[in-house]
C-alpha cells in the first residue's frame, strides 16, 4: 500500500524527470505492489510503459513480470510456461528460478517445488538462507522432519550467530521426539538471546518431558533437568511480571 502511495505520483507526474535507470526500478516496484493488492489491470497498464521502452528486445526481467501477472490471475500453468521459456534463454537468472519455485508452491506441486529448490541450491549459491528455510518448510509440510532438520543445519553453518535457526532446529527435534537434542538447542538459543520466550517455553517443555522419561532416553542427570526447569520457570515468571497474561501464566507454571 505504501509503495503504491509513494511510487504512483512519481511515475504519473515526474516520470521523464527521473533518472533513466531509477524510474524503471520504481516502476517495477509499483507493478509488483499492484499485483500484491490484486489490482491486476493497473499493473498491466504500467507494464505497458516498460514494454514501450524496450520494444521487441528480450528481457528476463520483463518476462518475469508477465509471469507474475499470470500468477496473480491464477493461471499458474501459463506462468510456469513463461518462466520455463525464459530460462531457456537466460539459464542463470536467479529471480526467475525463484519465481518458478514459488509458482509451484502456490499451485500445490510441493514435490516439484522441492526438486527445483534442491536443484537451485546445488547449482547456485548454497548459502542462500531463505531458500534453505523455504525448503525446510516444504519438507515439514511433507512430514519429512529429518530432511527439514538437514536444511536448518545448513543455515546454522552459514550463519551461526542467528538464534532463530537454533530455535527452529530445536522445534523440529522436539517434533520428532528427540527431546534431549531439542533441549540443548533451546539452551543455545537462550545463550544467544537471553530473553527469548520461545526458548524458555521450549526448555520447560522438553525437560518436563525428559524428567518423566526412562534413563536410557536421556543423557543429562535429573538434577540438571530439574535445574533447567527451575531456571525456565523463574525466567518466565520474571518476564511475565508486566504482561496482561501474568495470572494465567503463573498458574501454568505451577502445573
Amino acid at each position, binding site marked *: 500500500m505504501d509503495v503504491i502511495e509513494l511510487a504512483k505520483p512519481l511515475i504519473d507526474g515526474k516520470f521523464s524527470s527521473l533518472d533513466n535507470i531509477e524510474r524503471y526500478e520504481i516502476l517495477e516496484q509499483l507493478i509488483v505492489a499492484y499485483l500484491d493488492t490484486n489490482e491486476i489491470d493497473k499493473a498491466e497498464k504500467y507494464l505497458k510503459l516498460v514494454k514501450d521502452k524496450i520494444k521487441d528486445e528480450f528481457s528476463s526481467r520483463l518476462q518475469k513480470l508477465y509471469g507474475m501477472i499470470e500468477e496473480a490471475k491464477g493461471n499458474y500453468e501459463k506462468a510456469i510456461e513463461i518462466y520455463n521459456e525464459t530460462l531457456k534463454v537466460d539459464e542463470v537468472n536467479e529471480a526467475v528460478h525463484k519465481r518458478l519455485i514459488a509458482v509451484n508452491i502456490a499451485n500445490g506441486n510441493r514435490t516439484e517445488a522441492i526438486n527445483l529448490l534442491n536443484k537451485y541450491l546445488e547449482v547456485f549459491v548454497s548459502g542462500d538462507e531463505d531458500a534453505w528455510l523455504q525448503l525446510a518448510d516444504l519438507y515439514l509440510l511433507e512430514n519429512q522432519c529429518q530432511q527439514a532438520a538437514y536444511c536448518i543445519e545448513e543455515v546454522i553453518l552459514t550463519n551461526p550467530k542467528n538464534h532463530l535457526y537454533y530455535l527452529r532446529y530445536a*522445534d523440529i527435534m522436539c517434533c520428532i521426539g528427540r527431546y534431549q537434542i531439542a533441549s540443548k538447542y533451546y539452551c543455545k538459543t537462550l545463550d544467544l538471546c537471553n530473553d527469548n520466550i520461545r526458548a524458555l*517455553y521450549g526448555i520447560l517443555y522438553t525437560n518436563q518431558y525428559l524428567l518423566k522419561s526412562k534413563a536410557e532416553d536421556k543423557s543429562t542427570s535429573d538434577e540438571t533437568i530439574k535445574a533447567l526447569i527451575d531456571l525456565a520457570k523463574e525466567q518466565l515468571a520474571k*518476564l511475565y511480571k508486566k504482561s496482561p497474561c501474568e495470572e*494465567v501464566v503463573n498458574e501454568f507454571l505451577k502445573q
Partner: protein
Amino acid sequence: MEYHISKEAYLKIYAHCVKYPVNQVTGILLGKKTEGSPSKVNVITAIPVSHESVLLSNKLEIALRQIDIYCKKNTLQIIGCYHANELVENDEIPELINLFAKNIDSNLSGQSLLLMIDNKKLIANDDQHIFKAYVLQKSWKILQTITNYVFIVEEEGINKSKEIVKNGSYANIVDFDSHLEDISLDWLNNDKFVV
C-alpha cells in the same frame, strides 16, 4: 442440534485471517455447550493461536494448556477450533488439524465444532459467512448436510466484518505467535481489538 457463532467470535476469526492473508491460521473456539431440546453449542469467543506452521506442536500444547486455565477462570469450555489453509484452492482438513480437532472432540465428549475457513469466500467478501462447518460423526461431516443440525452466524458479525477491514482495526488482533514475540500482547482477551 444448534450451533451459534457470536459476533465477537466471528470478527476475531475474520480479523485473524485478514491480518495474515498469506499464512495458514489456527485458533480455538470457546463457548458453552447446553443439553436440552434442541441441544445448543454457543461459540462465544475465539482465541487466535497461530499464523505460522502448526506442525511444530509443542507450541500448540503450551497454548492449549494456557487456554484451559483461561477457560476455568471465565467459566467457558473449549468448543472446537478453526483453521484456514495457506493456499486459496486448498480446502482439505490437514492431518494435524484433524487429529487436533478430534482430540478436542473427545475432551468435550462429542458435539465439538471444526470451522474450516473457505478462502474463496474470504476473497469474495460478499454477504455470506466464511465457514465450512464440520462436526465429527465417525468422520468429519459438513454440518449443514445433517438433518436437524442448524448453524447460525450472528448477522451483525458478518455485516461488521467489512467495517473492520476498511478501518484497519483487524490489525489489532494478536495470536499466541505474536504474543511469544512480545508478551505484552494479550492474546487471550484481545482487549485492544474492539469492535
